[in-house]
């Protein structure tokens, strides 16, 4: 049974199972909270300049939190997303985690500011090619990094895991939809199970919250390529919705949310099991353009800017500036909720973008709900993925036929191609495995996915 009995019940700021963490933050309990993400300006990250890096992170955090105080924002989530080197050298990531957390503690003490820290470890496993996902040094580093950051003060653990990305990175640009669906329905699933079993273990051991994962490396890669005109938008839309079963695995293994911002597949998972979710839209234009700036907010519990580097703008440093923008976006949603207009407001967020782009259409709560139902009702993940893909093709076809969604001729042509593929895809994934093994030989290692 889904956590909600209809898509009409799902709205921003409110989840069935709120998460309490950090300095008294409660996520999904009636209020949308900003999740601020920032990264360094153009500096090298290495032990040599550890002092500079630590100072930078402390400074940025201070400015972000001070902005919250200035604008009477009571709760905030801060995300530290590791760059490569911070996971590669777990001590490095941990010390930065500690610095940020200490700064948050100071603000809690001094101003009563309620804050929580999400630490997102880098999935450095795909550093080796073909990637070693279960064995070897990299995976050890990843887990060690989780442990050390949890110990150093992280409140929420996340990762943008990459199981199968070594194939989809090529399959997406080559339009090999069969391979994409195979990865999302088989390989990524197996990797998520492996990875999240351990992350949940670690979280329990250290008493922190296992947050969630995102299909960033698949769906957001596709979105970026579609933005650049490299691949059709309908294909990016398909990758988007077909990511739901994969990212759901984290929760099945014990993740509690808040799911991670760049997972646009999150609403379906919230509908499935009631975990709070983070989403990013217009305020993440600092990190990437997107054709779904408002609709992304429809059911969010945290509202994020994804990532902004610390450069100076006239009104302050960019992280402060985006904190302010997030705060006002949240204030508006929360004002609607307070006046019992949350559902009407959600509908406006949806109406704003629903037909701007097929990818935005995917974020329509009605469609998300149907994707959630597929995951609920179809037994194995591979068939969930295939059915979701069919849902995408059918929905876009329908909306196009009825004139609400406008597609170029080339998009239409591709929609036809996608339909051909998903309606003729083998029911037994082992048939695709042969194709994948041949076409992507040398790109991946079967045993690293527990494949025969």
């Amino acid at each position, binding site marked *: 049974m889904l956590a909600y009995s209809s898509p009409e019940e799902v709205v921003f700021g409110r989840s069935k199972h709120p998460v309490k963490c950090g300095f008294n933050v409660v996520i999904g309990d009636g209020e949308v909270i900003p999740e601020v993400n920032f990264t360094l300006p153009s500096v*090298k990250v290495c032990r040599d300049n550890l002092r500079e890096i630590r100072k930078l992170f402390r400074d940025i955090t201070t400015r972000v939190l001070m902005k919250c105080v200035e604008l009477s924002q009571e709760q905030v989530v801060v995300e530290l997303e590791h760059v490569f080197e911070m996971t590669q050298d777990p001590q490095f990531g941990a010390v930065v985690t500690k610095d940020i957390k200490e700064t948050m503690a100071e603000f809690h003490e001094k101003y009563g500011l309620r804050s929580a820290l999400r630490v997102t470890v880098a999935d450095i496993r795909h*550093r080796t090619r073909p990637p070693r996902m279960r064995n070897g040094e990299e995976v050890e580093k990843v887990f060690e990094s989780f442990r050390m950051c949890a110990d150093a003060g992280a409140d929420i653990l996340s990762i943008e895991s990459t199981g199968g990305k070594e194939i989809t990175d090529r399959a997406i*640009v080559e339009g090999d939809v069969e391979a994409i669906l195979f990865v999302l329905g088989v390989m990524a699933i197996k990797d998520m199970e492996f990875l999240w079993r351990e992350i949940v273990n670690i979280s329990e051991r250290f008493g922190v919250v296992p947050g969630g994962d995102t299909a960033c490396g698949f769906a957001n890669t596709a979105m970026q390529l579609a933005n650049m*005109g490299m691949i059709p938008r309908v294909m990016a839309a398909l990758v988007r919705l077909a990511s739901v079963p994969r990212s759901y695995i984290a929760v099945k293994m014990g993740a509690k949310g808040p799911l991670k911002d760049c997972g646009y597949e999150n609403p379906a998972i919230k509908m499935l099991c009631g975990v709070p979710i983070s989403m990013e839209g217009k305020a993440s234009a600092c990190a990437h353009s997107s054709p779904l700036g408002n609709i992304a907010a429809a059911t969010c519990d945290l509202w994020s800017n994804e990532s902004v580097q610390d450069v100076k703008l006239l009104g302050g440093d960019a992280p402060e500036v985006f904190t302010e923008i997030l705060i006002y976006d949240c204030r508006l949603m929360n004002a609607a909720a307070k006046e019992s207009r949350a559902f009407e407001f959600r509908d406006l967020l949806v109406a704003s973008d629903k037909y701007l782009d097929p990818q935005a259409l995917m974020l329509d709560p009605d469609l998300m709900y149907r994707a959630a139902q597929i995951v609920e009702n179809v037994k194995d993940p591979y068939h969930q993925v295939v059915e979701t893909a069919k849902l995408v093709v059918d929905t876009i076809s329908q909306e196009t036929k009825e004139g609400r969604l406008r597609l170029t001729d*080339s998009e239409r042509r591709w929609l036809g191609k996608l339909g051909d593929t998903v309606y003729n895809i083998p029911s037994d994934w082992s048939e695709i495995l042969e194709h994948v093994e041949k076409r992507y030989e040398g790109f991946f290692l079967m045993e690293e996915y527990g494949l025969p």
Partner: protein
Amino acid sequence: MHELHLLSQAVLEGKEDEARSLVQNLLAMNVNPSRILNEGLIKGMDMVGEKFRAGEYYLPEVLLASKVMHSAFDILKSRFVDVGIRTRGKVVMGTVKGDLHDIGKNIVIAMLEGAGFDVVDLGVDVDSRTFVENVQEIEPHVLGMSALLTTTMPYMKEVIEELEREGLRKRVKVIVGGAPVNERFAMEIGADGYAEDAGEAVQLVRKLLDVEVG
């Protein structure tokens, strides 16, 4: 000539078997291999390029056509041994150390190859030593570096400095790209050029090598 037209069409439509057998027929008909290459295969790729720029084709179709062209060209190749075919230029590409992003780089490589350049891909997370050694060995006309993170872009400068130390800087044009990079940064670190996207990268390499547009 009708067969040549059919050949370009086969490339455009990504039909490998058809393209290969058309090449064989044309050779059997004693058509000049240069003509088959230029008026058939390259003509086809030009049509693909046009469609891509017009938004009618996407990358998968470009890559497929490129694959068909190469496959068909394999049949022709031996006929050129005597005259020797000049590639448009050699390029070495990689994503810099600490950075695991490779799609952007791969697209640039695919587009460059489609445009007739020889490209050697050093992969991702490439350190300056590796860049320098490959420049030394391969002697490319252009070295391309990609970075997707603010924290890895400074590494581009190190590579350029290393090239200078090794006395190689003047022998190769250096171009850079990636989300956090812009023209200003490229000039600051002493690169020869910056490209906003893959299409621009091809134009840039052409310009730097003074190669006429196909």
